[in-house]
C-alpha cells in the first residue's frame, strides 16, 4: 500500500513536469523537459533517500513525507520557469513585427475599429430602431389642435362643425388642416383575388380605425410604403392604410400586403400601403387609416385636428405648445391648445456634428495644434512626402470620426432602458469626449511620425541635464527605426527651443540601421 502511494506521488511529479512543459515554446520544450527530468532525479535522490525498510518507523515515514513535499514543491517551480520561457519567446516574436509602428498598421487598426463599431450598431436593436425613425421625423411645423383643459391628450375633443368653420375661414397662422376620428371596428380579411381568409385569427380582428380626410398623409408629409398609384386608380374600393405596427403584427410584415382586401363592418376596402411608425405619434393608437372624403370623415363624433403652421405661425411657436383662440361655428371663442408634433430631439447626425465642432474648438485648450514639422537643420521634405503625410492625417480622421459616430450611437441607443431623452445627452457627451481625445491623439500621433516614412519614432532616451536648461537643451530624443530622423522634444520649452524638432540623418548614420531602406527625404 505504502509502495503504491510513493508511485502515485512519483507519477504526479512526472505529470506536473509534463503539464508545465506544455507552456514552453515547442522549439525549447524537449531540452527543457530533459533538464527538469534530470534535476528531478537528483532532487528525489536527495530528498527521499531510497532503502527505507518496508516496516519503517512512524518517524521515518514522516521524514519521507516531508521529502516528497519538497519534491512536489520543486516540480511546481517548473511552471514558473516554463512561463518565464514562454514570455521571453513572445517578447522575441512580436505578432506584428513587420508592420509595427507603420502607417499601414495604424490605418488597419482604425479600419477594424470602424468596422466593429458599425457592425455593433447594426446588431443592437435599439440602434436599429432609432435609425429606422431618422428619415420619418414629423414635419416641425405640424401641430395637433385640441380643446384646452383636457386632461387626456388622447381624448378626441374637436367637433366636425368646429373644424369646418376653421377650414372655411382665411387663416393667418395655418395653411392646412386635416381631420380624423377613430372608431373601434371588427375587421375581416380576404384575398383580393380569391376571397379566401387571410392569415390571422380566423381572419377577424378588432382595430382602431381612423376615418381621415384624404389630405392627411399629404399634410403629415409621411410616405406611404408599398403604395401603387396605378392599382389605386384601377380599384373602385375605398382605401385603407395600415400602421406599421399592425402590418407587422397582423400581416407578418408581408411586403405584398398592398392590394389585399379587408372588410370593415362588411364593407370591402383595399389596403393601399403601410404608414411608417412616425404616424403613431398621433393620438388614438390607430391600427389603420381609412382615407375618405371630408363629409364621410366628418360624419359624426369628435375627432382630432392636425394643422400645418405658416411661417408666421412657426415663428410664434416658441415652445412645444401654444394657446390658440379661435371663433367657433356659433361665433363664440374657443380656447384651444396647439401641441407641436415634432420631437424636440435633434437628429443624431446633427448632434454629432455639434459635439464634434465643440470638441474641435476645445482642442487647443488641451494640446498644441501644431504638427511639429520644424527641423534642426532647416531641411524640408519633398512635396510628395508632405502630401503623403497630410493624406495619412486625413485618412486617420476619415476613419476615426465615423467610428466615433457609431460608437456614440452604440452607447446611447444600445440599451433600450435608457430612454430616448437621456440617450440624447449620452450621445452628446460621449461624442464630445471621444472627439476631443481622438483629435488630441491624432495630433500627438502625427507629431511622433517620421516625416520621411511616417513610422512612429521609438526608443525614447533622456538627453541633457535639467540643471543646464539655459546652456543646452535637455529633453527626450526618439529615433525613426528606418534611420531617417531623430526627434528632439524639449523637457522645458525655452525661447530658443520651444517645440519639438526633427533632425534628418545623413548617410553617415546608415551603419546604425542595418537592413533599413532609406528613401530620400
Amino acid at each position, binding site marked *: 500500500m505504502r509502495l503504491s502511494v510513493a508511485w502515485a506521488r512519483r507519477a504526479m511529479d512526472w505529470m506536473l513536469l509534463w503539464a508545465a512543459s506544455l507552456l514552453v515554446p515547442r522549439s525549447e520544450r524537449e531540452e527543457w523537459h530533459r533538464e527538469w527530468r534530470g534535476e528531478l532525479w537528483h532532487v528525489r535522490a*536527495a530528498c527521499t533517500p531510497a532503502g527505507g525498510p518496508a516496516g519503517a518507523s512512524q518517524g521515518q515515514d514522516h521524514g519521507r513525507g516531508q521529502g516528497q513535499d519538497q519534491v512536489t514543491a520543486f516540480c511546481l517551480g517548473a511552471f514558473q520557469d516554463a512561463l518565464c520561457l514562454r514570455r521571453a519567446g513572445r517578447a522575441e516574436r512580436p505578432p506584428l513585427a513587420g508592420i509595427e509602428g507603420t502607417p499601414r498598421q495604424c490605418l488597419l487598426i482604425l479600419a477594424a475599429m470602424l468596422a466593429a463599431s458599425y457592425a455593433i450598431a447594426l446588431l443592437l436593436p435599439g440602434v436599429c430602431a432609432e435609425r429606422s425613425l431618422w428619415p420619418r421625423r414629423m414635419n416641425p411645423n405640424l401641430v395637433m389642435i385640441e380643446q384646452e383643459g383636457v386632461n387626456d391628450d388622447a381624448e378626441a375633443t374637436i367637433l366636425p362643425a368646429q373644424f369646418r368653420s376653421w377650414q372655411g375661414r382665411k387663416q393667418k397662422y395655418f395653411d392646412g388642416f386635416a381631420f380624423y376620428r377613430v372608431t373601434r371596428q371588427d375587421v375581416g380579411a380576404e384575398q383580393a383575388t380569391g376571397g379566401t381568409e387571410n392569415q390571422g385569427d380566423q381572419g377577424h380582428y378588432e382595430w382602431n380605425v381612423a376615418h381621415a380626410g384624404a389630405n392627411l398623409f399629404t399634410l403629415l408629409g409621411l410616405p406611404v410604403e408599398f403604395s401603387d398609384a396605378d392599382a389605386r386608380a384601377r380599384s373602385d374600393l375605398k382605401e385603407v392604410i395600415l400602421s406599421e405596427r399592425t402590418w407587422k403584427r397582423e400581416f407578418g410584415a408581408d411586403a405584398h400586403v398592398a392590394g389585399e382586401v379587408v372588410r370593415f363592418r362588411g364593407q370591402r376596402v383595399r389596403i393601399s400601403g403601410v404608414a411608417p411608425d412616425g404616424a403613431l405619434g398621433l393620438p388614438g393608437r390607430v391600427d389603420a387609416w381609412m382615407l375618405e372624403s371630408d363629409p364621410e370623415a366628418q360624419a359624426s363624433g369628435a375627432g382630432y385636428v392636425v394643422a400645418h403652421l405658416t411661417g408666421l405661425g412657426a415663428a410664434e411657436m416658441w415652445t412645444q405648445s401654444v394657446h390658440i383662440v379661435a371663433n367657433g361655428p356659433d361665433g363664440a371663442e374657443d380656447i384651444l391648445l396647439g401641441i407641436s408634433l415634432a420631437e424636440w430631439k435633434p437628429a443624431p447626425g446633427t448632434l454629432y456634428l455639434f459635439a464634434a465642432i465643440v470638441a474641435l474648438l476645445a482642442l487647443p485648450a488641451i494640446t498644441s495644434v501644431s504638427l511639429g514639422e520644424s527641423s534642426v537643420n532647416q531641411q524640408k521634405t519633398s512635396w510628395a512626402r508632405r502630401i503623403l503625410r497630410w493624406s495619412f492625417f486625413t485618412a486617420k480622421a476619415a476613419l476615426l470620426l465615423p467610428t466615433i459616430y457609431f460608437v456614440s450611437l452604440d452607447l446611447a441607443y444600445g440599451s433600450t432602458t435608457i430612454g430616448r431623452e437621456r440617450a440624447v445627452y449620452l450621445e452628446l457627451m460621449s461624442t464630445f469626449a471621444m472627439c476631443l481625445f481622438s483629435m488630441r491623439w491624432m495630433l500627438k500621433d502625427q507629431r511622433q511620425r517620421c516625416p520621411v516614412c511616417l513610422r512612429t519614432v521609438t526608443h525614447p532616451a533622456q538627453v541633457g541635464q535639467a540643471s543646464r536648461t539655459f546652456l543646452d537643451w535637455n529633453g527626450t530624443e526618439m529615433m525613426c527605426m528606418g534611420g531617417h530622423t531623430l526627434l528632439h522634444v524639449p523637457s522645458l520649452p525655452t525661447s530658443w527651443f520651444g517645440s519639438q524638432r526633427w533632425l534628418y540623418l545623413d548617410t553617415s548614420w546608415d551603419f546604425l540601421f542595418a537592413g533599413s531602406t532609406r528613401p530620400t527625404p
Partner: protein
Amino acid sequence: MPDARLSHTAAMILQALDAGFVYGFSIMEMTGLPSGTVYPAMRRLERDELIRSHWEKQSIADAEQRPPRKYYKLTAAGKVTLEASRKRYPLLERLIPSAEAKSV
C-alpha cells in the same frame, strides 16, 4: 561595460556558480531559493550571456546510472558583472564564499 545593476537573487546565483555550485539543484540548496526562482533567473542570465550551459556527457551519466544533467558556468562578462555586484552587495561573499576564498 556590463551592467552591475543585477537583482540580489541574480547576484547570489552568479556567486553560487562562481563558488562551484554548477547545476540548478545545487544552487537551490546553497542559496535556499525555490526552483521557481532559481531556474527562471538562470534563463535570464543565460539570455544576457552572463552564464552559459552545457550538457554532461551521456557516458558519464550512464556510468553512474543517472540521467545527464545540465551544468552552468560564468562567462567572462558574467565574471565582470559578479565583481561589480560584489561591490554593490558586500555581504555576498560572506554568504557564499567563492572557491578561492574557501581554499585559503
